[in-house]
């Protein structure tokens, strides 16, 4: 009986236990959910505060950029010339009007050039006199006088920021003639434009305001009114935010007065402008929500537990993946820059900070133009933007400027970033610093050049020595001849000034003939002009060699310039004369109409030298082994439609297929140890390819070798090549 009663009790209690457990579970889940919501709200608030800090940074950078524009404008001679000409006494009818017209054009140019998102940055640019009278402006306004704000320091050279009526701010910069203030430049900026361009779009539950000295200058939702006491309460200093506001501080006809608001605020140090953001705060739970959640949770509690577990696991995986992506971006050695579609930088990674010297906060909100090195032309940047705006990836080489002003070089890939609707929202640039690599390549090329000069030095010395020897010998002869002529002339002078008394003309003629005989005049008269002529010939030869050497060795500073290839070939051949003159004759077949091509003469001379020396050495080998007659090296140039060709041919031993395939490999050589490093043709190919040209070899065993170098003509050179 007892057992039966116990069973009944248990059966009756079971639903209660289940209900109790479910209630406990629901309560626990509600608590967990509430805590999660609260945590999410905290995270969301932090994110909004961070976003606001970034927006303020962007606004500050934007205003700094405008200040710099105005400061530069204040030094512009065109603007100052109005005041100069006025000081000279010129009248508006005769000359002064021109200065104003020029100023108006300058203001118009600045206005047109400064746009963001297709909208002009400035609402108006004006030139004012000392009293604030508008002398000229763009867009033009009717004549009038501006009341210059209190606190405007006319002795300061820096632009100063002031409010300018509702919805606008103004930057004022004094203009100086010498040390005297003569007027001001005024730039009005619409806060609405600034907010639209620089602030993130707010949801319908939020709005932003700019304030200046306890006054609201702009609100993205004018229908929301801040109570008069609001800005007084938070005038100075700013309270720590986010902050839940007291009820009634913000009101509008569209919201009940008991709507709760959270305020976020930020202000850049030294700036009078404050940015506020107000978010409408909803309660996490109300009664209806709680009942709904309880009901649903009661029905699906078990499934929810499993679901939550699965969700938690998925969230954790997603979070880990997200954290990994963020960590990768932060730790990769490559520089990463992310901009929005207007080119405003929104993210840079630490590698960027390390490479460029800029801190992250200095570049967020700026344009990549601040890194411009000045080494690329406008077409280069236009091509880049055109490519990525079309949704394509751009790859190429950049020269950029660090914060300290130094230049560095990067290989860059810039790609568009698309959202889920396939719309481009951002651009990401991944760049690698190749400055050291380029420097190493330059040093290697320089080493090659020095090696070549060293190798040629002995031959050139010999080439110079031979004419020097006979010039020396002729000069010694002329020195002796001069002494004989001096003796002869002195003797004749004596005869002329002190004639022998009573001597007849015949006797005097005989005395002269004797003097000529003593000096060996018949020999000297013939040999002296010949000695002078030979000496001049020798000296001209030395001069030609020195001139060719100078052209060959002249440093080109790595620039690409229009280069006369025929002259390069002639100089290089002269410099290398000692390499080929014992084994070959050189025949030129140069196209007299050959156009100049863009190139680095220094590097191209190196290419031609390597090919000519190789040809000479091949002919030397042939002569040594086969005792063949003297070789011939033919150097020809041709003009084709898109390129020019340089063909250097020898009638040497040639190469078989196996050898031909290896000659461009670095460090491959057929020469004896110490005769060559095996880098000559490998470097030649690198140089030619760097010039966007090609090099090809045609050869067969015992059939000679022909090397053809093709270089693009100027018109076919692309903009992406850095022409320095």
């Amino acid at each position, binding site marked *: 009986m007892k057992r039966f009663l116990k069973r009944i009790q248990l059966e009756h209690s079971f639903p209660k236990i289940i209900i109790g457990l479910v209630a406990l579970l629901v309560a626990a889940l509600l608590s967990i959910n509430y805590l999660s919501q609260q945590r999410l709200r905290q995270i969301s608030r932090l994110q909004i505060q961070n976003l606001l800090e970034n927006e303020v940074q962007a606004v500050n950078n934007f205003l700094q950029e405008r200040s710099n524009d105005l400061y530069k404008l204040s030094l512009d001679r*065109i603007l100052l*010339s109005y005041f100069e000409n006025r000081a*000279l*006494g010129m009248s508006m009818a*005769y000359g002064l009007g*021109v200065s104003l017209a020029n100023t108006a054009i300058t203001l118009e140019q600045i206005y047109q050039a400064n746009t963001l998102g297709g909208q002009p940055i400035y609402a108006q640019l004006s030139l004012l006199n000392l009293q604030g009278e508008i002398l000229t402006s763009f867009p033009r306004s009717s004549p009038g006088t501006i009341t210059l704000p209190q606190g405007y320091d006319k002795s300061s050279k820096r632009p100063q920021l002031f409010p300018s009526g509702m919805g606008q701010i103004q930057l004022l910069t004094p203009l100086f003639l010498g040390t005297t203030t003569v007027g001001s430049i005024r730039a009005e900026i619409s806060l609405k434009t600034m907010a639209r361009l620089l602030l993130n779009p707010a949801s319908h539950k939020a709005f932003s305001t700019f304030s200046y000295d306890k006054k609201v200058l702009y609100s993205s939702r004018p229908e929301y009114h801040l109570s008069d006491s609001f800005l007084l309460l938070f005038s100075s200093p700013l309270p720590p935010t986010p902050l839940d506001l007291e009820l009634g501080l913000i009101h509008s006809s569209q919201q009940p007065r008991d709507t709760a608001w959270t305020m976020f605020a930020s202000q850049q140090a030294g700036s009078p402008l404050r940015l506020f953001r107000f978010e409408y705060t909803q309660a996490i739970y109300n009664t209806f929500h709680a009942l709904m959640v309880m009901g649903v949770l009661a029905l699906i509690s078990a499934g929810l537990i499993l679901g939550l577990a699965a969700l938690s696991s998925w969230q954790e995986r997603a979070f880990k993946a997200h954290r990994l992506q963020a960590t990768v971006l932060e730790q990769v050695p490559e520089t990463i820059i992310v901009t929005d579609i207007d080119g405003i930088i929104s993210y840079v990674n630490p590698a960027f900070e390390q490479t460029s010297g800029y801190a992250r906060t200095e570049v967020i909100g700026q344009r990549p133009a601040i890194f411009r090195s000045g080494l690329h032309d406008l077409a280069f940047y236009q091509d880049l933007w055109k490519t990525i705006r079309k949704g394509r990836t751009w790859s190429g080489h950049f020269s950029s400027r660090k914060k300290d002003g130094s230049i560095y070089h990067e290989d860059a890939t810039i790609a568009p970033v698309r959202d889920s609707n396939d719309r481009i929202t951002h651009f990401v640039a991944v760049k690698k610093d190749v400055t050291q690599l380029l420097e190493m390549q330059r040093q290697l090329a320089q080493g090659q050049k020095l090696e070549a000069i060293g190798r040629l030095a002995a031959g050139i010395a010999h080439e110079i020595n031979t004419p020097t020897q006979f010039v020396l010998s002729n000069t010694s002869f002329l020195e002796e001849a001069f002494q004989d002529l001096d003796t002869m002339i002195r003797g004749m002078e004596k005869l002329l000034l002190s004639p022998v008394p009573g001597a007849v003309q015949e006797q005097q003629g005989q005395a002269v003939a004797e003097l000529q005989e003593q000096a060996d005049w018949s020999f000297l008269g013939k040999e002296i002009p010949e000695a002078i002529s030979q000496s001049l010939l020798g000296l001209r030869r030395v001069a030609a060699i020195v001139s060719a050497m100078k052209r060959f060795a002249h440093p080109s500073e790595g620039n690409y310039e229009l280069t006369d290839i025929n002259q390069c070939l002639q100089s290089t051949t002269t410099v290398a004369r000692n390499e080929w003159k014992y084994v070959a004759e050189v025949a030129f077949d140069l196209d007299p109409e050959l156009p100049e091509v863009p190139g680095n003469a220094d590097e191209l001379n190196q290419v031609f030298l390597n090919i000519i020396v190789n040809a000479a050495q091949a002919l030397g080998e042939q002569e040594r082994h086969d005792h063949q007659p003297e070789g011939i090296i033919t150097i020809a140039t041709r003009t084709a439609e898109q390129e020019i060709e340089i063909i250097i041919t020898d009638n040497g031993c040639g190469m078989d297929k196996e050898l031909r395939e290896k000659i461009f490999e670095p460090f491959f050589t057929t020469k004896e140890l110490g005769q060559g490093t095996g880098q000559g043709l490998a470097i030649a190919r690198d140089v030619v390819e760097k010039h966007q040209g090609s090099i090809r070899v045609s050869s067969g065993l015992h059939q000679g070798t022909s090397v053809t170098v093709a270089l693009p003509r100027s018109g076919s050179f692309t903009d992406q090549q850095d022409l320095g």
Partner: protein
Amino acid sequence: MRHLLLLFSLACFALSTTPGLATDLEEVLARGGLRHLQIPYANFNLGDNKGLSHELMKGFADALGVKYVAVTTTWNKAIGDLTASPLPGKEGTPAPAATPRVRGDVIASGFTILPWREELVAFSLPVFPTQVWLVAASNSPLSPITPGAGTAQDILQVKQLLRGKTVLGKKDTCLDPCLYELAAVQAQVRYFSGGLNDLAPAILRGEADAALLDVPDALIALEKWPGQIKIIGPISPQQQMAVGFRHQSPRLRAAFNRYFTTLWQDGSYQGMVRRHYPHAARYFPAFFAKKSP
């Protein structure tokens, strides 16, 4: 193309109706080339085939459907190169040098309409306003005048400043001092041997107390040497520049006037002026704001 068709139809009409006058335009069309006599001067002709006059005449040649040929000449020879007539100088006026043959069909180079020139060449509709100003270095003791009731009074004020002063001008051009009777106020006139573009630098070098410059050149000088030169005041009433034709080329001149009117009315000419003289429209609003030239 529109211009071309219009002008070509005009030419055909002219040929079919008045054969007795079949010179000028017909010759240009038959030759297939318009020879533009140009003198490097200010932004009208910068040399190297650039400048407002170059662009205007190149457009005219294109509209006629003929090749544009630039013929460089000098101020002294320009009228002779256009007319090939011996042109004895009249008293008090410059004497343009005669050349044995016609070298060009039009003179366009900032060519000012002057009474003595009107006897020798036929001018088109005015293409640019001008005036001759007296210019001095900024450190000169000459002070700019305060404008009075009218230009005549301003000119008088300027001339009164010139007694005993050396004034640099350019013979056979609109800057020839003999055109403005400067000798009568006892100014010491000097003729400058260099080009018109070098007059302002000569003043800066102190070669004379002052120089004559026309407005387009003065505008450029003020831009090039801000704060270094000053405008004292006017030496002539307002003048106008135009394109010069032979008196025997009425139809070529008429064709140009029609071309120019079309260009003016569709705003293309004002665009050309903006490119070469950006401030001109602001400085001469009355001239450039007209609906028709």
